[in-house]
C-alpha cells in the first residue's frame, strides 16, 4: 500500500502541468480531503465528550441564571452514596447488566441457530429469509408501539389471547409491561425481535466462509453432522461469535428508545426497566440537572470502553492465525 501511495504523492509533479485547482496542489490534498470529516468529528463527538467530563465536576443547569459551580467529585460520590440517587442509579445499572446477561447469550445463540437454519439450499428459502430479515428495517420507536399493543393487558391483548388459547384459558390477562416481574423480559423479547437478524446476517456470512474442504475432510472421517458442527463450524466462526457477543453487549448498555417511549406512555413499570441512558436523559433533560447527568455519562462511557477493550483483545488473540 505504501509504495502505491508514495507514487501519488511523489514531489516530482510535472512542472509543465500547472495545477487545475487549489486542491491539485498535491501537498495539502491529503489533509484537505480529511478535514471536513475531521472537523465534524471534532465538533460533534470529541468536544461534547470532553465537555461531559468537564460538566461532571460542576453543578450546572441549562438556561439557569445561577453560574456553574465547581464541585469536584461530588456528583460522582453522590451517585453512589446519596440515598435518593444511589438507589435509582444502582437499579438502572443493574437493569442494564441484567438485560445484557440475558440478551447476549440468548441473542448470540439465537443468531447462530437462525443462521444455521437458513444456511441450506431449500426451495422457498428466499421467502423465509425475507420474513426473518424484515424487522431489521423497523425503527425501535415503531417496534415499541407495535409490541405495546401485542403486550396489552386484559384478555384482548394479542399475547394474552394467544396464551389463553394454548393454555386452555388459565392465562388470560397478564399485564406484561406493567408487572415488574415481566416488564424487562417483555422489552428483551421485543429487542431481540428487532435486532437478532442483524447478528444473524453477520454469523451467516461467517458460516459461509468456513472452507468446504474442512467439511469434506470431516465427512471422510465419518464425523456426524453434530460432530462436524462442534469441531469444524464452531471453531471456524469463533471470532465472529465473540464479535457478535460484544456488539450485543454494547447494544445492551445503549438501550434507550424502547424503554423511554414506553415509560413516557406510562405503559411500562419504570423501576424495573429504567436504564442508564433513560436516567441520563431524565436527569439532564427532564430535570435539568446537567452536571449529575454528565457524571452518569462518564460512567456509561467507562463501561463501554471496557467492553470495547475486551473486544479488541479477544479479536487480537486469534487474529494472528488467519
Amino acid at each position: 500500500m505504501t509504495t502505491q501511495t508514495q507514487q501519488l504523492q511523489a514531489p516530482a509533479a510535472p512542472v509543465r502541468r500547472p495545477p487545475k485547482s487549489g486542491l491539485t496542489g498535491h501537498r495539502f490534498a491529503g489533509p484537505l480531503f480529511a478535514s471536513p470529516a475531521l472537523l465534524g468529528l471534532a465538533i460533534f463527538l470529541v468536544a461534547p465528550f470532553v465537555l461531559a467530563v468537564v460538566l461532571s465536576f460542576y453543578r450546572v443547569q441549562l438556561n439557569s441564571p445561577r453560574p456553574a459551580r465547581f464541585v469536584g467529585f461530588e456528583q460522582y460520590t453522590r451517585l453512589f452514596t446519596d440515598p435518593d440517587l444511589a438507589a435509582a442509579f444502582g437499579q438502572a445499572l443493574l437493569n442494564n447488566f441484567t438485560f445484557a446477561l440475558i440478551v447476549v447469550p440468548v441473542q448470540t445463540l439465537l443468531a447462530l441457530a437462525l443462521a444455521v437454519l437458513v444456511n441450506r439450499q431449500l426451495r422457498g428459502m428466499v421467502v423465509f429469509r425475507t420474513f426473518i430479515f424484515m424487522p431489521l428495517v423497523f425503527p425501535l420507536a415503531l417496534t415499541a408501539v407495535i409490541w405495546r399493543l401485542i403486550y396489552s393487558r386484559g384478555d384482548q391483548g394479542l399475547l394474552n389471547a394467544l396464551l389463553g388459547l394454548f393454555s386452555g384459558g388459565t392465562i388470560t390477562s397478564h399485564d406484561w409491561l406493567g408487572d415488574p416481574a415481566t416488564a424487562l423480559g417483555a422489552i428483551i423479547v421485543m429487542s431481540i425481535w428487532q435486532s437478532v437478524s442483524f447478528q444473524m446476517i453477520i454469523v451467516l456470512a461467517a458460516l459461509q466462509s468456513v472452507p468446504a474442504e474442512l467439511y469434506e475432510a470431516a465427512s471422510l472421517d465419518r464425523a456426524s453432522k453434530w460432530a462436524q458442527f462442534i469441531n469444524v463450524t464452531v471453531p471456524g466462526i469463533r471470532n465472529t461469535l465473540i464479535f457478535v457477543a460484544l456488539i450485543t453487549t454494547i447494544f445492551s448498555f445503549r438501550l434507550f428508545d424502547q424503554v423511554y417511549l414506553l415509560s413516557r406512555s406510562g405503559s411500562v413499570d419504570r423501576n424495573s426497566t429504567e436504564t442508564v441512558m433513560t436516567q441520563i436523559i431524565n436527569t439532564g433533560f427532564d430535570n435539568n440537572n446537567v452536571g449529575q447527568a454528565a457524571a452518569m455519562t462518564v460512567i456509561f462511557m467507562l463501561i463501554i470502553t471496557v467492553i470495547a477493550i475486551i473486544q479488541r483483545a479477544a479479536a487480537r488473540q486469534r487474529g494472528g492465525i488467519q
Partner: protein
Amino acid sequence: MTTSTALKPRQRRGSMKRARRWQTALHYLLLAVVSLFFFLPVYYLIIGSFRPSSEVLSGLSGFVPTNLSFDNYRGVFDHLSSDATGHFGQFAAVSIIVTTAVVAGSLIVNSMAAYSFARMQWRGKKIIFLLVVVLTIIPFEAVALPLYYMFSGQRDTIAIQAIPFIANAFSIFLFYTFFLDVPGEIEEAARLDGAGPLRTFFQVVVPITKPAFATVAILTFLAQWGSYLWPVLMVSDPTVRPLPLAISIFQNQQPPEWGQVLAFGTMFIVPVLAVFLIFQRWFVASISSSAVKG
C-alpha cells in the same frame, strides 16, 4: 424399491432417503414457526391499520382481515390537521430531508477522509487515523446530553437534526477497508493522465468502489430513519418533528385510536419495507460487511 427383490444397499438408500425427507420436513416446520414469529407483528401492523380501532385490540380476531377500510388513514390526516398537532406530511418531509442530507453528506465527507487515510501520504496521518479508529467506540448516546447542552440554542431547526450525524468515524473506517483494495495502477494511470486528487477520486476511485457507498448508504439510512434520542432532546416544535418522535407522541393520544396509530406506523414503514424487498441482497451484504473488525 417397494418390491421384495430390493437389494440391501438399495434398501439402505431408501431408508436414508426417507430420513432425509423427514429432516427436510422438520426443517420447513422450524422455518415456518420462526418466520411466523418475525412476520406476525408486521402482519398485525398492516392489517390492523385497515380495521376499525375497536377491533385492533380484540384478542386473536385482531389478526383476521375483516371490515377493511382506509378510515384509519383518513383519521390520521384528520387528526393531525392543525399546527398544534403537526401534519403527517410535515413529519414525513422532515424525516426525508434530514435522512437524505445525512446520507448524502456522509457519503461524500467520510469517503474523502477515508481515501485520504488509505491512499495519500501526509504528515500526522497515522496518528490522526488511529484517533478516528478509537472514536468508533464512542456511541452517540455518550455525547447526546453534552451535545444538547452545546447546541440548545439551535433547538427546533432542521439543520441541527442532520449536521451532527454527517461525519461518522465508523463510516470512515468502513470506506477505508474498501479503499485499501483499490489497485494502485488505476490511480497511477489517472495521475499520468493529468488528473489531480479530486478527479482521481471522484472519476476513477468512486466508480469502482460502489459497494462501499451502498454499504454506508444503507447503514446510515437505517440508523437515521429511526433516530429517536436526538429529536427527543432537540425538537419540540411539531413543524420540524421527524417521524419516530411523531409516532411516539401520536400513540399517546387520549382516547387511544389504535387503528390510526397502526395506520401511522404503516405509512412510516411501508416505503422502507418496499425498498428493502427490492434491494434485500444489498441490505444483507452491507450488514455483513459492517462486521469488519480492526
